[in-house]
């Protein structure tokens, strides 16, 4: 090939190379821009929630200037809530209910998942499918008949009824996650343990739970999230402030008649959202793993 055509080809190649590289760079930067737009859209409400929580009632009602920023930030709302006995009760009740729910749910789910994943007995396959199916009977269908059941148990207007009911919302999915994780533990581990002399419960505690710990954390987080944020059941069954949990407490208590104390409501929101957000911030990977257990493990 002669020198001139070689150079021409080379310069063509170089300009071509730049355009291909530029194309790929465009795609990357375009993605970032689009994602940034989405992030703004999705974070607008939480952002506004925080902004409002820092505003005094005076500033809110005055409606001067940009409502999206705080002109005279104040922590008065937070202080009010922290010292407000009702709010303290709501928080405490939420914590109690959630902790009990998580413990009960995880115990039931882990035991059942261990049994369904490892030990086949007559009907275990149908049971596993059935567990999944119950997820498709929503709370909004069950809450009315449950009203009668709870009444019969004498637990109306007591947050202990939630401790009984919340597991029904968490256990099916937690079991499903755990079955997935337990199934992926190679059977050779069981056999090695059996030869080493372990019984089934020992296998569960010494092998399965430690090895499937990411699944357990993910399922626990899921149970926590469900219990902490439930609204329908508490709204239906709890009437007095001293029994309420955060979700209903904030909605019914801080909205007194026609007066909406938005600053305090938003501050309550922020305080109530703290536990899930903190767990999320530190354990985000487990959070995501719990959600996608279905996608990757079928």
């Amino acid at each position, binding site marked *: 090939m002669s020198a001139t055509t070689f150079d021409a080809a080379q310069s063509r190649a170089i300009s071509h190379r730049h355009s291909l590289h530029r194309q790929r760079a465009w795609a*990357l930067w375009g*993605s970032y821009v689009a994602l940034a737009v989405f992030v703004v859209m999705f974070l607008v409400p939480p952002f506004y929630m925080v902004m409002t929580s820092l505003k005094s009632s005076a500033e809110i009602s005055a409606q001067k200037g*940009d409502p999206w920023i705080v002109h005279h930030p104040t922590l008065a709302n937070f202080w009010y809530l922290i010292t407000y006995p009702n709010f303290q009760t709501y928080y405490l009740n939420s914590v109690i209910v959630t902790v009990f729910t998580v413990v009960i749910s995880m115990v039931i789910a882990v035991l059942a998942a261990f*049994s369904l994943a490892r030990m086949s007995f007559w009907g*275990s396959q149908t049971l596993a499918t059935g567990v999944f199916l*119950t997820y498709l009977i929503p709370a909004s269908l069950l809450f009315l008949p449950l009203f009668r059941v709870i009444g019969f148990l004498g637990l109306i207007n007591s947050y202990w009824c939630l401790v009984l009911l919340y597991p*029904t919302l968490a256990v099916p999915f937690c079991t499903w996650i755990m079955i997935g994780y337990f199934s992926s533990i190679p059977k050779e581990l069981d056999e090695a343990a059996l030869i080493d002399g372990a019984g089934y419960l020992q296998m569960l505690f010494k092998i399965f739970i430690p090895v499937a710990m990411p699944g357990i954390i993910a399922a626990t987080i899921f149970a926590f999230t469900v219990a902490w944020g439930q609204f329908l059941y508490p709204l239906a069954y709890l009437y007095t402030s001293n029994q309420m949990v955060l979700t209903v407490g904030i909605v019914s208590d801080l909205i007194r008649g026609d007066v909406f104390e938005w600053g305090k409501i938003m501050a309550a929101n922020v305080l109530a959202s703290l536990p899930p957000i903190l767990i999320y911030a530190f354990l985000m990977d487990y959070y995501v793993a719990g959600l996608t257990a279905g996608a990757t493990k079928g």
Partner: protein
Amino acid sequence: MADGTSVPVGVMAPGAVARPRGSMKKFAQRRSTIAFCLCLPLILLIAGFVVYPAFYAIYLSMLNKKMTAFVGLSNFAFLIRRHTFQLVIFQSCLFAITAVVFKALIGFVMAHLMHNIPGKNQRIWRGLLLVPWVIPLALSTLTWWWMFDPSYSALNWILEQLGFSAVPWLGVGWIARFCTITVNVWYGTPFFMIMYLAALKSVPEQLYEAAAIDGAGAVQKLFFVTIPMMRNIIAITVLFSLIVTFADFDIVRILTSGGPEDMTHVFATYAFQVGIQSGDIPLGAADSLFMFPILAFAAFFVLRGVNRRSREIAA
């Protein structure tokens, strides 16, 4: 054997055979019973607080208001003739289908965008985008309500700054419907994004390379490789979300309580209003049960999809 304790081949030590066989059978039996016992709490929980109430709901729906007499299907007939309930059926379907379609589309687009950026950056963006899912729905809905407030709406402020007139968000029927759908889409899209991103990652890169060599451009790769490979996940998430969205209570209850003029009521909120607030539990139960056929229909397809997916993965 050298130590003198050899046993001639073919002769077993007495008693060595009989015991293992007997205890093996008992062991197998015990294993089944242990397995069953481990499942018992689950079975009791589900039977007592899900299955039984579901059937009880059917029974309740066929009683009169005072729950003293059996009235057959008259509650259902009564509901169907009521204009409000017809609105409920319409709005529930509109709400669920529209919201799920938008969630799936936006989630799909976002999953692709996330897939494009390098792995280590994905964590940060994913972290930010999942926040709507983390905050309890009831509380985020309160925030939205505040943003839609007729007098103080921060969204109206932006519109006015741009020269548009304020919108009566929750005051007009169709706009209120739009608001409820928006909140649901805002809440649920991150879930779709996460699921689709996981599914996208599971498509082998070599398939795209083979398609590139075969002559596929970006759009063709999407239709011939990406979507077929993700078909099952898409189906499962859409159906699952349909069920959950269909039965949603929190958003409508907090934003509009069903108004204005009952235009935003869905099955769940109407059942609550009728059953708990008006005290007519049988009627409320009948309302809730209307959801059942649609749920069953969707559930059937979800199950089929899940089974097909597990077979696909095993293959």
